[in-house]
């Protein structure tokens, strides 16, 4: 009987060993991607995956990274911080990835960034915007090539300062992204327009990310004293909000509206004509914002392959892969420490324009774009017209203000 137990345990051990061991070849370059692939934000993960695949195919066709073919592993963070940590551990320990890219949720990013230090693996953030991961919580292994809240709200507050609205409120998701967007908006607008008023926290609208019925929030805002609304809702939340708000008469012109992420093509495709015209919306990348050959090639290739225009999330994934390839070329290696060193200070031309990764906080200085929604009979979605472009150096706060003390 004892022998049976010993044998049984050995068998279990063997099974676990086989299940647990990842056979990693050292030739291919492995990139792990973590996006939200399910729930109200699933289309963002889908568009990002498409952007990543486009970039990887382009690179592999040109010979790969430092001679090795690029392999991609995609994981679903489901927008939850503990799941994010779990899948990143899986990517690093089981799949043996050389770098992790992605992250849609600021909540996940804040949780994951410190863990990258333990994993000693570089993380290139392409979407999550909380300033903390390149600010108060910055660390050697965490990078971001996309616009963060600081930069986006700098643009929003500039536009807000020119609007006639005096009292502002917000409708945002009830996690760090919504709260921090509001916090920074108040901070920046107060500087540009000292007489601006802001509703107290109890009167603004923060909705749980899982909410699908926003009517109560819409009603709350419409019946408040505010004549300006900062909407930081995104993804499925924004789609639901715009539909329901439209029905309730929210867009009757009685209030100024700023949608910090309204120009996501995922949202514009879902809403089509339900997205009102004449709204100021922001984005991290707009496919029509510049005419460089690089951008045109990217948009054409993406449209040809996927039949939709690339969103900023698609561009983020695409840009991250290209940035990594550039860093690997600079370092002549994919060794994680060398990549981290190579990424610092790296400048690269992406479809969005030229970005430079600041060595002090690992945040990319990148140009930004806001625009007014407009109809265009030739296009299946709302486009931006007029477009207001902001130069990266004008909207990115100096390192001293970010709270990052890495260097």
């Amino acid at each position: 009987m004892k022998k049976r137990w010993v044998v049984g345990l050995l068998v279990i051990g063997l099974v676990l060993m086989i299940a647990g061991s990842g056979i990693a070849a050292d030739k291919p370059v492995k990139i792990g991607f973590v996006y939200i692939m399910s729930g109200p934000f699933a289309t963002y993960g889908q568009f990002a995956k498409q952007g990543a695949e486009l970039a990887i195919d382009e690179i592999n066709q040109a010979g790969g990274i430092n001679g090795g073919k690029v392999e991609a592993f995609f994981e679903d963070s489901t927008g939850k911080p503990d799941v994010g940590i779990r899948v990143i551990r899986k990517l690093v320990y089981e799949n043996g990835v050389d770098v992790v890219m992605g992250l849609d949720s600021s909540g996940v990013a804040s949780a994951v960034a410190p863990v990258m230090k333990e994993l000693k693996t570089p993380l290139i953030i392409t979407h999550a915007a909380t300033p903390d991961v390149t600010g108060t919580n910055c660390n050697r292994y965490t990078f971001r090539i996309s616009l963060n809240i600081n930069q986006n709200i700098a643009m929003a507050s500039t536009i807000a300062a020119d609007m006639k609205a005096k009292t502002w409120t917000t409708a945002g998701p009830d996690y760090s992204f919504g709260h921090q967007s509001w916090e920074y908006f108040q901070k920046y607008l107060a500087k540009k327009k000292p007489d601006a008023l802001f509703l107290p926290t109890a009167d603004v609208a923060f909705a749980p990310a899982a909410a699908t019925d926003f009517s109560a929030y819409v009603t709350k805002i419409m019946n408040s004293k505010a004549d300006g609304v900062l909407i930081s809702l995104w993804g499925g939340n924004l789609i639901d909000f715009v539909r329901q708000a439209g029905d309730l008469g929210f867009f009757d012109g009685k209030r100024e509206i700023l949608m910090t992420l309204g120009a996501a093509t995922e949202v514009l495709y879902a809403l089509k004509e339900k997205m009102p015209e004449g709204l100021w919306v922001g984005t991290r990348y707009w496919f029509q914002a510049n005419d460089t050959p690089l951008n045109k090639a990217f948009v054409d290739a993406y449209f040809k392959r996927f039949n939709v225009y690339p969103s900023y999330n698609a561009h983020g994934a695409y840009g991250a892969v290209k940035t990594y390839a550039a860093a690997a070329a600079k370092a002549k290696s994919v060794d994680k420490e060398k990549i981290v060193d190579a990424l610092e200070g790296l400048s690269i031309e992406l479809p969005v324009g030229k970005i430079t990764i600041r060595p002090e906080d690992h945040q990319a200085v990148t140009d930004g774009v806001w625009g007014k929604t407009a109809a265009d009979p030739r296009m299946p979605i709302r486009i931006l017209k007029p477009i207001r472009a902001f130069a990266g150096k004008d909207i990115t706060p100096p390192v001293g203000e970010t709270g990052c003390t890495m260097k």
Partner: protein
Amino acid sequence: MEGFLANVLNGLSWGMLLFLISMGLTTVFGVMGVLNFAHGSLFMLGAYLCMQFVRWVGSFWVGLLLGPPLVAVLSVLLERFLLRPLYGRDVSFQLLLTFGVMLFLDDGVRLIWGAAYHVVNPPQILSGVIPLFSQTYPVYRLFLVILGPLVGIALWVFFAFTRWGKILRAAAMDRQMAEIVGVRVPLLFTAVFAFGAWLAALGGALAAPHQSVGPAMGERIIIESFIVVVIGGMGSFPGAFVGALILGFLNSFGTTLMPDVQMALPYILLSVVLLTRPRGIFGEEG
């Protein structure tokens, strides 16, 4: 004034949807003694099927008409082959079985239709808005507000005045006696379960234009309908109606007036009811 009215209407429209679903849950519990965890998944299936019919045929009404019966057929299979073997056993096992079915269906929906959210537009006649003082209100929600009580009254009439209704109530009160007088209880149970599923799916189909259709729909509504049924009284229609209204108003007014605790209000109410009057507002002494 508009704010108050809008909140009332918001509360009513969500409340009526909740009422439809809770009616199914409470009927099944009242007659069969089964608390069906998968009820929310059946609601979700109704929404998805409606969406699918809209894609195929372009008509919401077709989806509303054909979706729920399909779900009812599925539920007949569920009851006959999965639930029936457990009737003699501990109530916990029934709960666990329906929990497993819930997991299966929730992921099954993901498998068939994908993990993303879908948008369903209300039918032409019911889309659009009507003016509400200086604001507007969507017609579709008003439709829900009117439809809810109508269905409720129809069902109440059925249970109170028709022969079948009386048989069902008899079987609920005393299963053994009903069998003795010749009622085929197993068949009755299947019928009731299918009826409950039909109601849930109907609620789902009606909910599809009201909110986005997604794989998490079932999870949220099952808890809210549990709470409605417990607060109102298991097996009671007026209970389900009142309970659903209370929850609907807690949702709309709570968000405006008490945003920090709004999420907890239904659970607080649930606990208070369970501890002071466990049979619910309209429930009968069990």
